[in-house]
């Protein structure tokens, strides 16, 4: 009994370090896309003049920022997948192994 409790402790510690790793990456990444997108809607609502600034030809800053948001979302998705594969997955399988031992 004591041994299985000790194993449970190990599993929980492993989960905590996984959650900590996730927070370290996901909090900044979430802030980036929220600021990028919600910021765009705020500018659209309150600073229409800024959106009218021409960037190339008839393409204004508003459409340029919309295009930027597309690229940003795609980039973040790829970055997330890479981080998840390289950092989260090994931590998760360690936690899973510890979890399985504690259940056994």
């Amino acid at each position, binding site marked *: 009994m004591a041994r299985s409790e000790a194993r449970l402790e190990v599993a*929980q510690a492993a989960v905590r370090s996984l959650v900590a790793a996730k927070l370290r990456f996901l909090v900044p990444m979430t802030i980036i896309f929220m600021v990028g997108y919600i910021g765009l809607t705020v500018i659209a609502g309150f600073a229409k003049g800024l959106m009218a600034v021409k960037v190339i030809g008839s393409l204004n800053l508003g459409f340029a920022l919309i*295009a930027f948001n597309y690229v940003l979302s795609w980039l973040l998705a790829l970055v997330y997948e890479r981080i998840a594969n390289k950092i989260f997955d090994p931590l998760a399988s360690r936690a899973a192994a510890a979890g399985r031992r504690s259940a056994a």
Partner: protein
Amino acid sequence: MSITLSIFAVILLISLGITYWAARRTATTSDFYAADGRLTAAQNGFALAGDWCSAAAFLGFTGLTALYGMDGAFYALGPLVAFCTVLFLVAEPLRNSGRYTLGDVIRSRMQTRASLLAAITGTVVVNFAYLMPQMAGAGVLVRLLTGISYDWAEIFVGISMIVYVAFGGMLATTWVQIVKAVLMLGAGAIVLVMALSLVHFNPLSFFAEAEAKYGAGYLLPGNYLKNPFDQISLGLGYVLGLAGLPHVMTRFYTVPDAKAARRSVVWVMFLAGAFFAATTLFGLAAADFVGQDTIRAADKGGNLTLPLLAQYLGGGKGSLGGELMLGFVAAVAVATILAVVSALTLSTSSTIAHDFYVNWFKGGRVDGRREVWIARATAVVIGLLAIALGILAQGVNVAVLVILAICVAASANFPVLILSLFWRRFNTGGVIGGMTVGLVSSVVLAMIGPAMRGSEALWPLVNPTIVSMPLGFLGAVVGSLLAGRDMENEKRFDAFLLQVHTGIAPE
């Protein structure tokens, strides 16, 4: 119109063939609700793209851009950004902690009947609020595109979706989505290349032409969404609401593990995102080539913009190429509507059969074969109800329901889901508080707003998410604190956390 009907008949035959094939492979509850969790990430990615590009996206975003400029592009961008939330916070935890439904996640976290009932309520309200305008839109569009009467269009769409869902379950629904997504992306690619070929493959010409024709104001925000707070509210609704839409979320149970769930989100972000970006160009191209007056004359909401653009690109009205292109795009639009209402029907019948009847009412004591039978019967009932509601909704302003669906998803389902996954002290009181406050504030604010009451609105915003979402979170937190600490539940949180992040189920 006969070209549309013949192309659509071919799509329908393919879908029925898929349903027949899928029906023979659907025996267990896991087959029916989740295609036995055996889809690949790419298959699920295409199916998600099918789910998420409804006719509202396919036809609506293009029309909004053609008639109102930049606001249409905002509508198109939001659904892509929303997948960042899903990817970072929701997809993998959902895959790890549930089996078939949102109710499963809440039930395994809280283990109380009351919290399960709250999750069922959130699912059913959002799905019906989403299903009804889709059905109403289906009637109008099928009538516009094929010439069948509204009531017959409802019956036809309803019966097709009942057949897909009741016989083929998740496997048929998924493949119908995949076929539709491939056709839709194919149609989009053809239209895009043809439109670009007219401007020497320089998309900037679309902007220059639009500015020359309609003035610089056309390319600015605020032509459709007049109130600045509505812009922000729309954005918030998308970014948080998608993660609370049950018919999209159940898709993550169709893949084997969290890694595949993750990969399928990346797939959908590129597939649907590229399509959404293209709708902005389609809208501008249509405004340039077809012209706003012609678009308004065909349908004042602009829903026929894309078919009209396709007709123009094919060679114009009356030419064979033009009619073929129009027919193809219109047939894909009808297939789109059908696929989306099928997914909604499946998700609703899953929650009624699995969450409500089996787990809430019977305490889980129903054997698998009987549960599948009940789920199929529920799909038939939901389908018939959808037909009836669709017929009743004719001529009624259903726009408020579209807003309501996404707003309730963001204000009630999303806070409850996120706090269940990540907050130790969250408890049954919090689930009930969050669901009630989020739901009630969304419904009340939408009902007294301009979408429902026009100029007599008691409240200025069309989309209330900016207020109702924080209220939903507040209700969830206050509910948790008022209910007092549930030590049993907090102790179980460690095991739940292990499951959420690794997929290992507690004993």
